[in-house]
């Protein structure tokens, strides 16, 4: 089994095919989209491949250490330039092919006009613990 992180972007990914902002969809299209996402997660729970998922707020900031006795420095939120993560899902699957297949399904979530968004999702394998058998 191997774990993969699926990342959905607010910004920073290539533009999707069906690129219409969500507040321009009809309320029913929004409901259908949410239903698709929920069904997808439920199905992966059913197959034993779901680990966790969460949406993230769009506004965040960068923080760094600024030296002994000083408060951390914060920067942001950043306007238009930066890569911005909208949410994540972790899956635990048998193969890279399976991870790609699932990411493809998630990207087919319906958007404006009820048509798939064809959204670009970022797929990142987890680094694992070293195997017991090495030779």
């Amino acid at each position, binding site marked *: 089994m191997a774990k993969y992180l699926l990342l959905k972007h607010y910004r920073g990914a290539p533009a999707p095919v069906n690129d219409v902002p969500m507040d*321009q969809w009809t309320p029913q299209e929004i409901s259908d989209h949410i*239903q698709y996402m929920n069904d997808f997660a439920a199905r992966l729970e059913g197959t034993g491949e779901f680990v966790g998922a969460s*949406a993230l707020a769009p506004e965040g900031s960068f923080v760094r250490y600024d030296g002994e006795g000083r408060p951390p420095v914060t920067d942001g939120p950043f306007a238009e330039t930066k890569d911005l993560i909208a949410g994540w899902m972790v899956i635990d699957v048998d193969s890279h092919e399976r991870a790609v297949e699932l990411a493809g399904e998630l990207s087919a979530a319906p958007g404006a006009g009820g048509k798939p968004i064809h959204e670009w999702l970022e797929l990142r394998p987890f680094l694992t613990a070293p195997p017991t058998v090495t030779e």
Partner: protein
Amino acid sequence: MDEVLLRSLTPSVIGILVRRGADFAAAEDAVQDALVAAVRAWPAGAPRDPKGWLVTAAWRRFLDATRADAARRRREGVAEEEPPPEPGPAVDDTLLLYFLCAHPSLTPSSAVALTLRAVGGLTTRQIARAYLVPEATMAQRISRAKRTVSGVRFDRPGDVATVLRVLYLVFNEGYSGDVDLAAEAIRLARQLAAAVDHPEAAGLLALMLLHHARRAARTASDGSLVPLAEQDRGRWDTGAITEGVAVLQAALARDRLGEFQAQAAIAALHADARSADETDWVQIVGWYDELVRLTDNPVVRLNRAVAVGEADGPRAGLAALAALEESFPGSAGTEHPVPRHAAVAAYLHERDGDLAAAARLYTEAARKATNLAERDHLTRQAARLNARRML
């Protein structure tokens, strides 16, 4: 086996062990072990004296643990500790436990966890699941909290207000995992209101009951939020409403008004309306005025603006919103906005007929939402208006 009955005995059994000389942390561990043993030993039904059974089982476990500890200390050459001093005058042990677990030296998250375990009798695993953290993390949080309060004397009542805040936090967390935190908060608030003579304890219990009564109507079958005005009032829990109103009336009769009683009074007025149109908004504004007098904060002012908008029209509501921004600069800003400010502004602008401003504000509100259900709801609102404007 009635798990809730069993758990309701937790604080008084811990109290008895502490009075017999056990320190709080050891007593709490022993009672948790006894609860687990009880679940195994009582599959068919509780013994005639479940409390006596638990005291005996917990005390035996406490002694075993202490002996093991003492033997270890002797081996390590540490002197035996002096026996603890006699406890002070008897105050209801359950009540003392509430104060201890909500002690001001604890952070809110520690107080919540300790209260659920030592007063609520939940296991660490159940609490961890409810708050979606690993069990080891929750175990650490609880044992650190126990260390923090280990020096607190277990003999005099503290400030009821701190306990109420902790229970309010538990209630608001709602429901995830196999423990219904809202129902658990109601149980603990009911037990507290019975143990202490305090109108705000009753006020909080009433507030919880009246909000809990609407729970089934608050979400649609697809999980989306249903706003108060659109809820199917036939699905409200009339039993909880009746109890909440009775508890509230008894509290208000004491004539010592507080925040929770005023909030419960507002919830009771909503519960009283057979349809959204029949809501007595003028009286609700009156209660918000009381709340502003008791605790002037931007959240109360924001909710008051909604009520004013219903009582006197959207223009009046928008004026109340402008007054809020004057009293609390930055409340509509991007840095530290009052939660839901943009959503309220959007609603009032829509009622005032300015659909373009309303749609823009709903989109902004969705961006600032702090939970998924609310964000989805606000996005739908923006979409609804945008679709109408395009017709």
